[in-house]
């Protein structure tokens, strides 16, 4: 057990794993960024560099049977939900060994067996799905909880309003996690949303709303853990807002004219990975050497994932019409 203020389910070993996991997320997306810049991956992608803590910290408190619904900015969620970086990288390369056999790409990575019900290319499109998955948990007494990730932009979609209300009236085991990274593509949240905090909207649905520093792993874990427990015990959903920031642009071609470099630097200084490392070292959970080694391992796993992806075959043209119907 740790002397840190973390949920009871979080051991020292788990804390170390989480530190490495955060680096895996960062290295994965930085690698993807480089490959896009070089034209080695096509299509588009949305990177979560800077948002590692909200994925790693939220999913850390789940049990293996629990489920998540992710977003277009979903690589971190997938990695944290026991995702396989080889299959993820292979998918971005459009290879047969990818999570979606090369047919989905970045925005549709899903790992149904591990409880990741998928990234989603439609802003707000996954929120109703999370409610449905939570309904199954309730109707079949499976006792799992669904974490539903979405962004500040999605909170202005009608699907958000309808879904949170539905989950609230049915007391469904779902936790709504709004990753407020301050911009819906180029739209600043302060211009697009009149309330100061998206979590303030929770009161409109009669459910608790919580605001969390999205770069603070301990605060994230504790808050999500409490909401998950509420949900699991049949006490219904919570809306949690993570104040965070995406260091990179919205997608691959973004000149970021809508924000200043000063603002970006302010948020970079709040880096959730660095902060978590400091906390772990100060608490004696991790040494500087161990931290270095974990970071190095994460880097190596991403290099290996690239090799795996590059060595994987393209999908056969014969698979084009497969899997339209079950």
């Amino acid at each position: 057990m740790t002397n840190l203020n973390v949920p009871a389910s979080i051991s020292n070993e788990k804390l170390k794993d989480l530190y490495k996991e955060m680096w895996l997320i960062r290295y994965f997306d930085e690698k993807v960024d480089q490959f896009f810049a070089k034209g080695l991956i096509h299509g588009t992608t949305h990177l979560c560099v800077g948002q590692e803590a909200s994925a790693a910290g939220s999913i850390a408190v789940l049990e293996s049977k629990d489920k998540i619904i992710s977003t277009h900015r979903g690589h971190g969620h997938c990695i944290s939900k026991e995702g396989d970086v080889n299959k993820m990288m292979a998918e971005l390369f459009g290879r047969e060994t990818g999570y979606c056999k090369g047919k989905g790409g970045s925005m549709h990575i899903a790992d149904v067996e591990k409880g990741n019900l998928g990234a989603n290319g439609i802003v707000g499109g996954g929120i109703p799905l999370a409610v449905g998955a939570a309904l199954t948990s309730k109707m079949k007494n499976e006792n799992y909880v669904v974490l539903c990730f979405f962004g500040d932009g999605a909170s202005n979609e009608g699907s958000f309003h309808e879904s949170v209300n539905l989950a609230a009236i049915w007391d469904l085991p779902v936790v709504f996690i709004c990753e407020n990274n301050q911009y819906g593509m180029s739209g600043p949240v302060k211009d697009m949303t009149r309330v100061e905090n998206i979590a303030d909207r929770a009161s409109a649905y009669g459910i608790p709303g919580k605001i969390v520093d999205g770069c603070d792993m301990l605060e994230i874990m504790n808050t999500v853990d409490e909401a998950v427990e509420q949900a699991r015990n049949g006490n219904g959903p919570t809306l949690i807002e993570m104040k965070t920031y995406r260091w990179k642009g919205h997608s691959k071609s973004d000149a970021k004219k809508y924000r200043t470099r000063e603002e970006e630097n302010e948020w970079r200084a709040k880096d959730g990975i660095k902060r978590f490392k400091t906390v772990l070292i100060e608490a004696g959970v991790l040494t500087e050497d161990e931290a270095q080694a974990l970071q190095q391992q994460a880097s190596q796993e991403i290099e290996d994932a690239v090799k795996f992806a590059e060595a994987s075959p393209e999908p056969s043209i014969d698979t084009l019409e497969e899997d339209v119907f079950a």
Partner: protein
Amino acid sequence: MTNREITYLEAVREAMTQEMRQNQDVFILGEDIGIYGGAFGVTRGMIEEFGPERVRNTPISEAAIAGAAVGAALTGMRPILELQFSDFITIAMDQMVNQAAKTRYMFGGKGKVPMVLRTPSGSGTGAAAQHSQSLEAWMAHIPGLKVVQPSTAYDVKGLLKAAMDDDNPVIFYEHKLLYKTSGHVPEEQYSIPLGKADVKREGTDVTIVATAMMVHKALEAAAALEKEGISVEVVDPRTIVPLDEETIINSVKKTGRLIVVHEAVKRGGIGGEIASMIAESEAFDYLDAPIKRLGGLAVPIPYNPTLEKAAIPQIPDIIAAVKEVVKNK
């Protein structure tokens, strides 16, 4: 018992009820489907038998309830979603088109979405432009959705059983003017495979492919034409995705003439697809006259009853079309 007649509406209810008695994963959700019994009374009595957990009365939130059905289906349930009017599918469109239809393919063959979206469609009730449309061609255009349009009480029960058994999202259009029509319906469960057309009337001079309400208009037209010595074959595809091309092709090869009739707007309607399919098939060489399509005018469905009727094909229109294509007989 063998000749029991019930209404189309009762057949829908019976199909759901029998399935829900034997499969705990099947449940229904929708607006006012509880005590009220649904906008058209289809679910009347069901909440009393199955309770509010399995007959889920929902808020007026088409996007959320459609998405909840998709999410529940993806995680092991077999939901039936009732939308009060098929026009409201516009509000649930993202969930059906971008989510339900594509999930399995996007995920590389993992996950399945076994759900049925049941919804009343069609004009003829004076409900005007936003409650009378026939939008099935939209859904038929989307890879990953199956589309069913039953025309009789017998068909609706068997097709709904097949739809509930299917592991894919099925859009199930119930024509609102057919709800009160009666027919022979066996009490026991039975399944009519999706993708199997039914020749509702055999004939030799011309094939009419008609859907939903138009099946009955085509049959009435055929009965009138018989008196004039014109033999009409009426083919009801029953499902437009998958489409039983073989039955239609064989019929056209036999009669050498094709008329397609649907209530949906002719422009972009499924009639164009069926006509093109025949033009591209071996049946083309058998055609003795140009293919004719009858469909709704390109107008919103109007309120006034005379205008409303005039907006979609009627029996005299079908008779006139038949006479035109057989004139060189």
